[in-house]
């Protein structure tokens, strides 16, 4: 057979073979994408952080391997405190491996905790710039986690981490509206629980956040009662204290001291736990009826005036103006 005829037949066969497989491959691609098995297109910015060799490796279908290398590089940037580089490298990492929880959590942790702490203590910058950099880092950490959740809506841990960040007493002064961030934290914990895989503490954490949202006290009380009814594993001092103050909010005429003794088992235990709760001012827990209850318990226990919880200094609420004064 002549070479041109043979080539012609081969080319036609190749095209016909391609045309025959194209619909099947397109359908399989859709199916794999729906199952979360097909890689999505990389963002253009990702290539800026991946050198030629790694780009070739990523093109060869080894994105997670490149992500592992970049994670090591990001760790070096972290030890060198090059926060912008850390953030940009993690943007590339999660683009390469969007379903790996660890990268979303670590990227957010570097921003919201490590970078934020660095700016909190970095005396080389003027206070105003430190404050803005601190706040921006926390917001970037939040945004990063929220992006992780959009990519992995069924991951309980990402929701729980977001809830933790939004209700962290060292972080919430960075958010403009604390009420909104506590509610967002409660919602994040709720969604985490709804995945069906969340650990026990997540449901309690939802209560701890919801109880701090002004106007949601009734909802928080219903949740506290339901958790309390589940048994002793949920009878943590925080949960019992919140149940008590929320009941006092619902019905201001209740005998707080008597109810506290019923909940905690004895006047001593109740006084210890409630004194602790009274002093957690930085966490902004509600204290409805608590002062009256503590006073009554002090009388019952004959607490000397100098040892009264009301005589102990209360930690001042965190105020960014104070944090960045020097």
């Amino acid at each position, binding site marked *: *057979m002549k070479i041109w005829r*043979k080539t012609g*037949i*081969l080319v036609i*066969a*190749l*095209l016909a*073979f*391609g*045309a025959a*497989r*194209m619909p*099947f*491959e*397109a359908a*399989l*691609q859709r*199916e*794999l994408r729906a*199952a*979360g*098995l*097909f*890689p999505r*297109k990389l963002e253009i910015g990702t290539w800026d952080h991946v050198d030629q060799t790694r780009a*070739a*490796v990523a*093109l*060869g*279908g*080894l*994105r*997670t*391997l490149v*992500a*592992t290398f970049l*994670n*090591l590089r990001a*760790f070096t940037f972290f030890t060198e405190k090059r926060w912008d580089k850390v953030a940009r490298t993690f943007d590339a990492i999660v683009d390469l*491996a969007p*379903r*790996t*929880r*660890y990268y979303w*959590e*670590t990227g957010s*942790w570097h921003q919201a*905790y490590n970078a934020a702490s660095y700016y909190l203590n970095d005396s080389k910058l003027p206070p105003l710039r430190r404050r803005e950099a601190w706040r921006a880092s926390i917001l970037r950490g939040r945004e990063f986690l929220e992006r992780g959740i959009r990519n992995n809506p069924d991951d309980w*841990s990402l929701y729980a*981490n977001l809830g933790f960040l939004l209700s962290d007493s060292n972080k919430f002064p960075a958010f403009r509206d604390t009420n909104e961030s506590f509610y967002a934290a409660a919602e994040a914990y709720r969604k985490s629980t709804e995945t069906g*895989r969340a*650990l*026990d*503490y997540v449901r309690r954490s939802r209560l701890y956040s919801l109880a701090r949202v002004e106007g949601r006290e009734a909802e928080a009380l219903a949740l506290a009662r339901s958790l309390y009814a589940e048994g002793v*594993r949920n009878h943590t001092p925080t949960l019992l204290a919140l149940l008590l103050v929320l009941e006092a909010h619902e019905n201001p005429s209740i005998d707080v001291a008597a109810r506290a003794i019923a909940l905690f088992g004895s006047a001593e235990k109740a006084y210890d736990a409630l004194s602790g709760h009274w002093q957690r001012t930085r966490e902004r827990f509600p204290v409805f009826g608590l002062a009256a209850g503590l006073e009554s318990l002090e009388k019952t226990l004959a607490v000397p005036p100098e040892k009264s919880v009301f005589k102990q200094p209360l930690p001042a609420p965190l105020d960014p103006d104070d944090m960045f004064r020097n």
Partner: protein
Amino acid sequence: MSTPTSKPTQGSHWSRILTISLHTFTQLVRMKVFYFLAIFAVIAIGSNFFELPQHVGPESVGASVLRSIKSWSLGAMTLFSVVLSIVATALLLPKDVEDRTLYTILAKPVPRFDYLAGKLLGVLMLVFVSLALMDLLMIAVLQIRTSMVAVEQEAMARAMGWTQDAIDSLRAETVANGPNWSLQGAVFAVFLRASIMASLALLISTFSSSTLFTTIVSFLIYFIGHFQADARDAYLQGGQAGEGVLARIGTLLISLVLPDFQLFNVIDAVIEGQAMPLVALGKLALVGLYYALFFTIASWFVFSDKEF
């Protein structure tokens, strides 16, 4: 020398193909290709040491190292299998010509299709055995490390006062990141991709003038094949992005001519913890078989009346 009219008289196609494939396998093994397993062992064991500081509770202990083992091991498997399938196939025909083995074989009543299929099968046997050995090593390392991580997490969880339910749930999550069937599916996907590359390299080697040409062109196709899905999407979207007629023809040609290697990138998702359904794996196997058969038949078509 030309032997297109030789008619087989003895033995079946399968026995001839098997004989040639076993000979090819032995020939390749004698080239000491299995030495790379030592490098793989270093990679699989070395990936254990890339544990970076973690940030929260017991659930994060060792989470990165299990993924690191899978990612490094499957990455090395992909690299070795693709290099092995391309280079070994590219070497076969020129080596048989150089050693004059080809003339001896084709002078006998061996159909050229049997010769090519036997050669390809020999390469695939080598790739399969290599991947099986690497898989065993990865599973062993992963199994040991998963057990260690689970023990470490449990100790930390108990120290933090976690309930038994929570500890059990954590253990289940950790074990799911260890060796599982989806991971075996990913290794099979690596084999399928290497098989396509071997059959494609066989086709190229039937008309190429040198081993180097076959190797370079095969690697180029391998990399461009990872863009095939993008080209197909662009073509199927019917010019929505505003591309011109030439661009559409270009994307159509790439979609029709090149294999779609991105389909086999399911391994990334498996490393990230996604489960691979058996149906999806079956469909991938069909795609792999379809390509391998077509390229082998095309190789025979080119090779059938080739003069030596």
